[in-house]
């Protein structure tokens, strides 16, 4: 670490003012900026290249060249721009580090010069302390926040929100030193990104931060500055005294050396301090004037954007935030305000429509959408169609919904063809999201392969959503149910029972061929194939893929669960949530020992100033609103996550059984049953799967424990769940709906789900009870208790006379008991059974 070397190089490269050429450079730079603003990219590039020749390693020049070239090139390669900007950022960081070392080195050299006696020992010490604090004071030249912001902007336009979020967050955590204009851009982008990522806590944080500055003036700040300047005459006296004093304190012990020094001879200083304290005691006025100065850094936001404009923008952000958090009441209030302010803006209309959609007022939502201007054109067009699709899906008009989604997709993809290409057109192309909607829509209408294809298109935007993986798994399962999988799986058509009548007369035999039987270990060994889609883009659905998807879903779920827990462990009182610095400081290294005290200090900081004027109160109200929305969101997302977790685990157990892995199935079923407050439908499935897995593992007594859970004392079996359980679990909304008396009625509640294909229907409660009997019967039969099995299966047949499994088990029992006549009569009761003659070979006759 030779300080002189580094200082020499960085001086020549970075510090234009040092060689006296700073002024002409800055004039050229200004001109280039003007050209850039007026989109004269060719001329701008010329100037920039001139600059680059003279300052070839200046990261800022490189940065602006990259940006300008991108526009000059027609925004054709955003990913390449990200690479270039990341490179600029890295260079900038290196330069900043060397310059810091240089600064420290020179200051050390300086102190060495004046004090003389101090050795070199202090140098490494200093450098260590600097290394710890590098983040704090990047000097202007090396501030690369613009480069980082621009990288995030591109990720945003590429709809890679989590990437944008991860790059913006550290920037936001150090936002104070950043120039206001840039800081505002950072905040707004972060807000958009956080909302897109459903990161509700982060958006609340940014909203709070942005809301504060709007209410503060700049006048006080000026005052405070003046005050300090005036009083600065006091220490000027002490300066002289202090200098004359250097040697005298030698006799005192070191601990209070400096104290003694200041106390001993500096009468002037001491007295002035005494009097200052005394005056300060009565100087209430000044302290009040100063008290608001802590806000000055924010007030500058007003400069960069017209305040009214920003205010409206924030209002719309707030509506989106409230909608996302599910605080619909507050959203309604807020959207009203926004509509009053500029009712015609399409974004306000779309938000209002979204509100009505979320509240289940589908008619109102449609009406609002119809009020959009240019509703079928361009970017708005694809949103219009997509949102209509959402509404019609909710109305269970699946066919109509899918038409709208398709229209949305076409109009969205046509956007890309527009010339000239602009960065914003990239983000206006929402086909990723529409594709997801399409996928879910196709799944609901029983088209698993199509659904999977759509979902896979949406993968880049949804890969971190548990529901996405779960839906993909559902596609696989549905495909297997419909017999669409190439190997394994059973098609519905072949599920009928075939009875071959073989031979004649005394040699006549009846062969029972049950192709759908999947008891125990069948031969459907499936090749494991980890790739999701084949070369032609067709998704390769399989049960192994389902297993993989479910693993993903569960993994993401448990990681966001732990996230929720950690944030909920700290009580959500407003001061804590609201103060952005509080949350940020958590990560900060704080000196040990005083840590506890300091965190309390921090709390105090958030309550700085209490002038109690109306504006302050308004800010407090809105902070409370935000924090209450946060807790609403936490509550609902916990509930939603629980439902998804139950569904994922149940499906996992099922898939493991299908893939002939009873051990895996058992552990999934058990973890399903361990979910606290597990819904009764899934608990039933958990018991069924666990019992089957245990039978497969030759542990019949444990299996029967699972099946007997529903046995009320004696022999009566309780219904494992009721119709209401099911309905409750299906419809979670409509609590907010208020149209009931207007005659319109909450549409969703009247709609019969008749359009839903039969394949999706689940067991009715009675059928579920019959299934329990059937499985108990099977278990008893396996134990060799044929009579008991017969009783149980007869009970099942009472409840569900056409149950195929019940009849077949009954056939088995009768055959095992040697009663083939009875067995045959049961066989004839099966609804899907065909008697077939065995072909007589021409050769033999």
């Amino acid at each position, binding site marked *: 670490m030779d300080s002189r070397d580094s200082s020499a190089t960085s001086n020549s490269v970075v510090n234009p003012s040092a060689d006296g050429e700073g002024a002409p450079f800055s004039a050229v730079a200004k001109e280039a900026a003007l050209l850039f603003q007026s989109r004269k990219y060719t001329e701008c590039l010329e100037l920039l290249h001139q600059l680059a020749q003279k300052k070839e390693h200046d990261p800022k020049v490189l940065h602006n060249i990259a940006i300008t070239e991108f526009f000059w090139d027609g925004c054709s390669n955003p990913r390449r721009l990200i690479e270039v900007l990341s490179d600029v950022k890295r260079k900038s960081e290196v330069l900043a580090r060397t310059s810091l070392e240089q600064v420290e080195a020179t200051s050390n050299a300086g102190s060495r010069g004046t004090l003389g006696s101090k050795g070199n020992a202090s140098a490494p010490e200093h450098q260590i302390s600097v290394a710890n604090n590098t983040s704090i004071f990047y000097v202007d030249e090396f501030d690369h926040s613009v*480069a980082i912001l621009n990288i995030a902007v591109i990720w945003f336009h590429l709809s890679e929100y989590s990437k944008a979020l991860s790059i913006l967050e550290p920037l936001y955590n150090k936002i104070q030193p950043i120039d206001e204009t840039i800081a505002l851009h950072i905040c707004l982008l972060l807000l958009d990104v956080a909302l897109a990522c459903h990161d509700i806590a982060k958006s609340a944080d940014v909203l709070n931060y942005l809301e504060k500055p709007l209410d503060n003036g700049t006048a006080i700040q000026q005052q405070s500055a003046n005050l300090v300047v005036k009083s600065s005459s006091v220490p000027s006296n002490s*300066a002289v005294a202090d200098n004359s004093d250097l040697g005298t304190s030698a006799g005192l012990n070191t601990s209070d050396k400096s104290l003694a020094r200041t106390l001993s001879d500096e009468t002037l200083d001491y007295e002035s301090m005494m009097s200052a304290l005394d005056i300060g*005691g009565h100087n209430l006025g000044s*302290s009040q004037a100063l008290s608001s100065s802590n806000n000055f850094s924010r007030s500058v936001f007003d400069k960069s954007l017209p305040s009214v404009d920003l205010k409206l923008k924030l209002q719309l952000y707030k509506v989106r935030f409230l909608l996302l958090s599910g605080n619909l009441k507050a959203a309604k209030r807020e959207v009203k305000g926004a509509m009053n302010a500029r009712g015609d803006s399409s974004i306000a209309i779309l938000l209002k429509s979204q509100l009505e959609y979320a509240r289940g007022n589908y008619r109102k939502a449609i009406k609002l959408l119809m009020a959009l201007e240019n509703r079928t054109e361009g970017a708005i067009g694809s949103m219009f169609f*997509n949102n209509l699709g959402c509404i019609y899906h909710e109305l269970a008009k699946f066919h109509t919904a899918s038409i709208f989604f398709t229209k949305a997709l076409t109009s969205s993809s046509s956007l890309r063809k527009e010339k000239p290409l602009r960065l914003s057109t990239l983000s206006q192309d929402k086909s990723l999201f529409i594709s997801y909607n399409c996928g879910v829509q196709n799944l609901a209408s029983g088209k698993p392969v199509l659904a999977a294809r759509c979902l896979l298109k949406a993968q880049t935007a949804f890969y971190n959503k548990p*529901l996405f993986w779960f839906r993909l798994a559902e596609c696989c399962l549905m495909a297997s149910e419909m017999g669409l999988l190439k190997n394994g799986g059973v098609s519905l058509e072949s599920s009928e029972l075939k009875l071959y009548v073989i031979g004649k007369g005394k040699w006549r*035999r009846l062969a029972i061929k049950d192709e759908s039987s999947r008891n125990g270990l069948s031969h459907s060994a499936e090749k494991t194939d980890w790739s999701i889609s084949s070369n032609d883009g067709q998704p390769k659905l399989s049960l192994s893929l389902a297993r993989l998807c479910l693993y993903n879903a569960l993994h993401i779920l448990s990681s966001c669960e732990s996230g929720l827990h950690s944030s909920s462990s700290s009580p959500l009182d407003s001061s804590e949530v609201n103060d952005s610095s509080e949350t940020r400081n958590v990560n900060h290294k704080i000196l040990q020992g005083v840590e506890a005290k300091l965190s309390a200090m921090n709390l*105090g900081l958030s309550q700085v100033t209490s002038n109690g004027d109306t504006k302050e109160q308004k800010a407090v109200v809105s902070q409370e609103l935000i924090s209450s929305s946060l807790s609403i969101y936490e509550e609902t997302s916990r509930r939603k996550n629980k439902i998804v977790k139950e569904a994922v685990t149940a499906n996992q157990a099922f898939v493991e059984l299908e893939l002939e892995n009873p051990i895996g199935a058992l552990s999934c079923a058990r973890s399903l049953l361990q979910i606290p407050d597990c819904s009764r439908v899934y608990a039933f499935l958990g018991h069924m799967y666990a019992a089957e897995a245990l039978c497969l593992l030759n542990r019949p007594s444990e299996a029967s424990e699972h099946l007997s859970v529903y046995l009320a004392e004696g022999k009566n079996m309780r219904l494992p769940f009721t119709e209401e359980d099911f309905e409750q679990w299906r419809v979670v909304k409509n609590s907010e709906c208020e149209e009931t008396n207007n005659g319109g009625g909450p549409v969703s509640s009247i709609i019969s789900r008749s359009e839903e294909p039969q394949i999706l229907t689940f067991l009715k409660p009675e059928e579920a009870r019959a299934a329990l009997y059937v499985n108990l019967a099977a278990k008893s039969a*396996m134990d060799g208790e044929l009579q008991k099995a017969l009783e149980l299966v007869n009970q099942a047949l009472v409840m569900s006379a056409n149950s195929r499994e019940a009849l077949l088990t009954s056939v088995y029992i009768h055959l095992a008991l040697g009663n083939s006549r009875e067995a045959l009569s049961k066989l004839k009761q099966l609804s899907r059974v065909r008697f077939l003659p065995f072909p007589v070979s021409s050769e033999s006759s």
Partner: protein
Amino acid sequence: MMMIGIVNGEESYKLLKLLKQDHRPLLDLTSEFTSTFSPSLHFPLCTSLYLILEDKLMLTAPERLVAFTVLHQTYASPSSSMNPFIRFIAACNDGAENFERAFILQLLRSSDSSSSKEFLKQSAADYIKGFDPSAQTFPQIDQLQQQYCKNAHPEPYNCLFKDMPVKNVVSDPDVPSSCNISSPEFDLQPGVQPKIGSGDKDETVAGLLSNLTLEGIGPQWIRPRPPRLPIQDGELVWLVPGNNHELLWDSGMCADTSRGAAIRDLIAKATKSPLVPAQQEKVVMELANDPKLVYHCGVTPSRLPELVENNPLIAVEVLTRLINSPEITEYFTVLVTMEMSLHSMEVVNRLTQAVKLPSDFLRLYISNCITSCESIKDKYMQNRLVRLVCVFLQSLIRNNHIDVKEILIEVQAFCINFSRIREAAGLFRLLKTMEG
């Protein structure tokens, strides 16, 4: 892995035809078996043979010998212990006709040495004809199992579902149980009009060959499919136009940084020695003009003590401007833990007037002051310091910068300790009036 095929009617007739050729050498028949049927059919065909062999009525004696030969020879290489049917073959030795037992024994032994394959060159019919019952001794079944199956695959894992299947083929229950199936009464006679109730055995054998399944039928287990999860609230993405975020031009490029550099120099100086008034004014002005400058001016927590000692007012200016920074706690920590001095007290005092300091920080600072007063040795110095601390405390209390209750006990003790000093007594009285 080879796909396992399904035996259709035609193939089972072909197999039956093969079995019926009791006059051809057995070896010919086995090679014909492997050449006629594709490898994927070998296992299902052999399984059918195995299942039909279990029913002793269905095949004639020579047919059975052919079937056993096929079962054994199809899987004879590389080693007969790999034969999936070896256990069954060995077990069949029990309770069968003597010539069949002898034949099976020879089959089993044939795998020991190639020479003994000779007997397979005769036909099944010839074997039965030439069989001499007196020349045979039969080993126990255990012994056979021990000898021929010890290297075989262990019994496959069987779960309960597999344990007790019944055959999936049912005899016609309408055939009276008194009917003796092996009597030729109802067998088809060539050229004779069939009676009611008569049937062709071959047809049945062929049917069985293609329809018997290893699994048989067993009790049924219901595995309900999990229901499809309904669309969740907010799962469908509702689209709203986002805000446009454009790429920003970095206006810091080649910007004039001389002013910032000047301030950094001044601050660096300020940590070494007091600045002259003009310099101080310049720093304060620049900091006021550019609110972000304070973050770039080079003041770090580690440098704060030097700044406080040399230029307390600039320190105050910097700290008030940093109050919203997340690092402010670090600065405060340094301020509280640095050595007590007149200037640090001045900074704290001014700060209390400019901003509301966290009360914890103030308490900590007051404790430090009191400790310093107590530990100082020089009496004169101590007096001066105590006086100063007292005035400082009074100022804090009068301006309501601190809640008296929080520090009451500690400060009272301090006042009593130094009651000889006038200011301490005054402070004590002030505390008393506050209490009342």
